[in-house]
């Protein structure tokens, strides 16, 4: 092998890089100092990623016959593909191109121009040494299983499932609760248009229930995920319903006859009751009830069986056991939603201690025509209609003591509450806010409308809610104590009812979820998208997408948009039938392998098999994910990793150390 002809291309990225790194000097240095390493041309250019920049590279490949290309620009995670394609277009194998980051790793994180320029040089010489050892590779193609798993039956999941199913591909929807619908099913009105939540949601729920392409698995949870993009094996746990769904007609007699009532902590947010055998709400999909084992008299005492006695189709089956179902899917969409922050944590607001302090979800149920009060707004006593209502924004949001982030929906939700409270009771309504955030379409108009209705907007974060009266006017009231920051004075406003617009928080089991699906969470606990702006529904894990509040607090329109976006990504992949994967794989040199079996249990994907007969190990390229742990683990150096070979990394180390470790004399490029 003759010495490689290497081209080095240094990007200014406008002033993003050039502002801190002397790019001209770097290019000049590379041309002179790295010439003996095979660098035949080094150029700097305003925007390497622009079409002109790419043409520059293509031209050199053709005219100078470059055999290797090093681009010093932004992070490979942004433009690696761009420059590989450029090389491809010029007839050079794309994997003979190396992109090194002198923006994220240099110009953006350093201020000292000299030091930054020095580091850029080191990084480039590292890239040059590394690229010498690159080999021409072909991307791996793996077939995609056409089925998709959607986890979570809230509005985001429903949207995604329907889009995919309507495109003609099979969908499995797994929902933890007895019915799909999610939080949206609990609401009465939706901002800013105030159309009835049920009216727009239930048709979609029914579609999911009836869709020929959708397999609905409610009262179920994902237990385990194996495999990789295109070929996931998922284990789903089907909790026992104690109702034979094939027999049940959803007539509801069992619910009528069940003698035991319990507080409904989930759907009614603790504000109402349900029977022990129940469907969460009338329009539930599917409409089969479940028996709540913990509270069922039969399961506790061994007697009762009222539901069984009265069931006309003998659908009740106390013997039902949980089932574990295996499904194969090509891709996964996570729409696992959010939990409501527990306002009890903010003791000074008295939730849980002061009867007439309510959470936002409680209020939603209050106002819901199908809710425990039939849509009427009362105090906790269930009869008194409040004359004054206080709505406290940012309860648990924008607060370092609880959640540092803005929960996004609270402003609009609180304005909606203000409107509903006024509409239903004609009460005086006070909204306490830090800032009003109504950026989306028709949102600020809604704010205007609520102002017109005469809602008092008080700018100030409520300090405390107390029942400690000062003087008679406070007697028997809740006093909201706040600084009205616009007049700079402390105010104490007596009200009958306080509603806390509680924060949206990640599901309490978000960590297990992330772990099971191989995703990572932000420090707040929301699942992390591949790119916050440019790739909001994809994740770092190929073939797994996220939608709705699992990714962060958002309202219904945004959740729907994400659901659809995720679906589009999935459909796009399915229609390619197969996907190209980075050919980063490990291979075992059968000659060198001594069959010591050290590597055998290093692979979490069971890609390494041991041939007893020949006493050697082998890597199954289809299962190998290319992490390289076995490469690093092989005592005989018999395993090599394409794309990240020992030679490549060792050479890069030399390169990185090269020009500032004066004494490290570089022997001529070894001939492999």
């Amino acid at each position, binding site marked *: 092998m003759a010495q490689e002809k290497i081209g080095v291309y240094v990007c200014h990225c406008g002033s993003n890089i050039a502002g801190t790194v002397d790019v001209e000097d770097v290019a000049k240095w590379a041309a002179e100092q790295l010439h003996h390493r095979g660098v035949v041309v080094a150029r700097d250019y305003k925007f390497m990623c622009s079409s002109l920049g790419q043409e520059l590279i293509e031209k050199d490949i053709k005219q100078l016959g470059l055999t290797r290309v090093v681009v010093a620009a932004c992070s490979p995670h942004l433009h690696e593909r761009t420059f590989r394609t450029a090389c491809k277009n010029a007839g050079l194998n794309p994997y003979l191109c190396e992109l090194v980051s002198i923006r994220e790793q240099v110009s953006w994180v350093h201020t000292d121009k000299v030091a930054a320029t020095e580091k850029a040089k080191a990084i480039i010489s590292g890239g040059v040494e590394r690229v010498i050892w690159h080999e021409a590779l072909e991307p791996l193609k793996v077939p995609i299983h056409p089925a998709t798993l959607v986890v979570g039956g809230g509005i985001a999941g429903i949207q995604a499932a329907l889009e995919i199913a309507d495109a003609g591909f099979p969908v499995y929807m797994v929902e933890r609760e007895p019915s799909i619908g999610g939080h949206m099913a609990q609401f009465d009105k939706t901002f800013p248009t105030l159309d009835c939540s049920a009216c727009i949601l239930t048709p979609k729920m029914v579609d999911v229930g009836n869709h020929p392409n959708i397999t609905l698995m409610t009262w179920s949870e994902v237990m385990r995920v194996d495999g990789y993009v295109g070929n996931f094996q998922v284990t789903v746990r089907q909790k026992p319903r104690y109702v034979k769904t094939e027999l049940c007609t959803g007539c509801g007699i069992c619910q009528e006859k069940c003698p035991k009532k319990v507080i409904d902590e989930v759907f009614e947010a603790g504000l109402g009751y349900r029977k022990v055998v129940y469907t969460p709400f009338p329009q539930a999909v599917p409409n089969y009830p479940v028996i709540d084992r913990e509270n069922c008299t039969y399961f506790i005492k061994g007697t009762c069986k009222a539901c069984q006695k009265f069931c006309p189709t003998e659908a009740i089956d106390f013997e039902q056991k949980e089932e574990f179902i295996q499904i194969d899917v090509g891709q996964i969409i996570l729409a696992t939603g959010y939990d409501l922050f527990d306002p009890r944590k903010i003791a000074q607001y008295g939730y849980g201690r002061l009867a007439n302090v309510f959470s936002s979800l409680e209020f939603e149920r209050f106002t819901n025509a199908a809710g425990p009060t039939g849509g009427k707004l009362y105090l906790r006593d269930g009869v008194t209609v409040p004359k004054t209502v206080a709505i406290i924004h940012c309860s648990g949001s924008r607060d370092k003591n609880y959640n540092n982030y803005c929960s996004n929906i609270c402003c609009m939700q609180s304005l909606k509450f203000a409107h509903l409270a006024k509409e239903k009771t004609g009460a005086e309504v006070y909204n306490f806010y830090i800032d009003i955030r109504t950026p989306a379409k028709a949102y600020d108009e809604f704010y205007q409308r609520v102002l017109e209705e005469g809602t008092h907007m008080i700018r100030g974060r409520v300090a405390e809610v107390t029942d400690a009266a000062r003087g008679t006017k406070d007697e028997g009231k809740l006093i909201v104590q706040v600084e009205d920051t616009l007049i700079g004075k402390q105010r104490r406003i007596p009200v009958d009812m306080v509603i806390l617009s509680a924060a949206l928080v990640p599901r309490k089991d978000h960590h297990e979820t992330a772990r099971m699906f191989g995703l990572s969470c932000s420090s707040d606990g929301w699942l992390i998208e591949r790119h916050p702006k440019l790739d909001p529904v994809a994740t770092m894990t190929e073939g797994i997408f996220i939608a709705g509040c699992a990714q962060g607090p958002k309202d219904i329109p945004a959740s729907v948009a994400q659901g659809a976006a995720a679906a589009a990504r999935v459909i796009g992949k399915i229609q390619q039938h197969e996907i190209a994967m980075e050919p980063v794989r490990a291979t075992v040199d059968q000659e*060198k392998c*001594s069959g010591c079996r050290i*590597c*055998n*249990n290093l692979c979490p994907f069971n890609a390494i098999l041991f041939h007893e007969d020949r006493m050697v190990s082998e890597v199954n390229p289809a299962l190998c994910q290319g992490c390289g742990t076995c490469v690093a683990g*092989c*005592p005989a*150096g018999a395993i090599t990793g394409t794309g990240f070979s020992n030679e490549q990394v060792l050479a890069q180390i030399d390169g990185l150390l090269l020009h500032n470790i004066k004494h490290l004399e570089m022997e001529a490029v070894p001939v492999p």
Partner: protein
Amino acid sequence: MTTNGKPKFAMYWAASCGGCEIAVLNIHEKILDVDANFDVVFWPVAMDAKYKDVEAMEDGSILLTLFNGAIRNDENEHVAKLLRRKSKILVAFGSCANEGCMPALANLSSVQEMVDTAFSTITTDNPNGIRPQVTFTVPEGDLHIPQLYPAVRTLDQIVPVDYYMPGCPPESHQIAAVIDLVIQVLQGKAELPPAGTVIGAGNSTCCDECKRKRNEKLIKKFERIQHVMIDPELCLLEQGILCSGPATRSGCNALCPAAGSPCIGCYGPADGVLDYGSRLMTAVASVIDSNDPDEIEHILDGIPDPAGQFYRFNLAGSLMRFSKSAWQG
């Protein structure tokens, strides 16, 4: 010394124990072939010869030199350079010349520490606290003994080497094979392998030749061999005994494991391995059966002397080559 037409053969020992010589003699009647085919011109252990005789020879006049022993002092270096000049084929013979072997374990300490150990520990009877001097004057004149270097080096860190023959010592059957080969080459019946090749050894690792049964490896505790009853059938590493087999070049027919004693790694790294010790380290660490840092540390306490364990034969040939105390004195 006769000057017949036979090609010239030399063998030299630098810092070594003499085991390599014995191994050569251990090839039994094959030694006669050596005599039949070669004119032995220089072999301190077997015959009297002076450096000046070698210096007098024509450059490149020796066909084959087997050089064993590491480079510990300036004499070793001097002779290494001398023989390189005089020989056509220079073979780094045995672990010392290849990778430093036992002498190189001294690279973990400074020369001072080493001399102290040798001349002033309780096991030494040295009432006058005598220390070796490089130069010493006697009535006949000045006596010189070689100067120790701060660290031991391998032959190829001093001069270019044509072939490498690992082992401590190289197995006699391998030596015999190599000698056969050279003779065949002389008779034009065979080709020499490309320069830089490792000869007289396999290119996989010890496990390849080991007969013991093996499974996936999960280690909860490292055992010292004298503390456990060893399953005669099962892989030693799986029994918690630190066996260097997985990382050590094949060629010895896994003699030690066969005898129920773990491989100690004398055949050095496998083909293309840059650092023997780190290969062994990574293998051993990888199969520790714990994800809890504290527990792992506890398990690692079962390896009291990691550097000695993983670089027993290879320190001089390793990436680090020596410890800080060696070069800081």
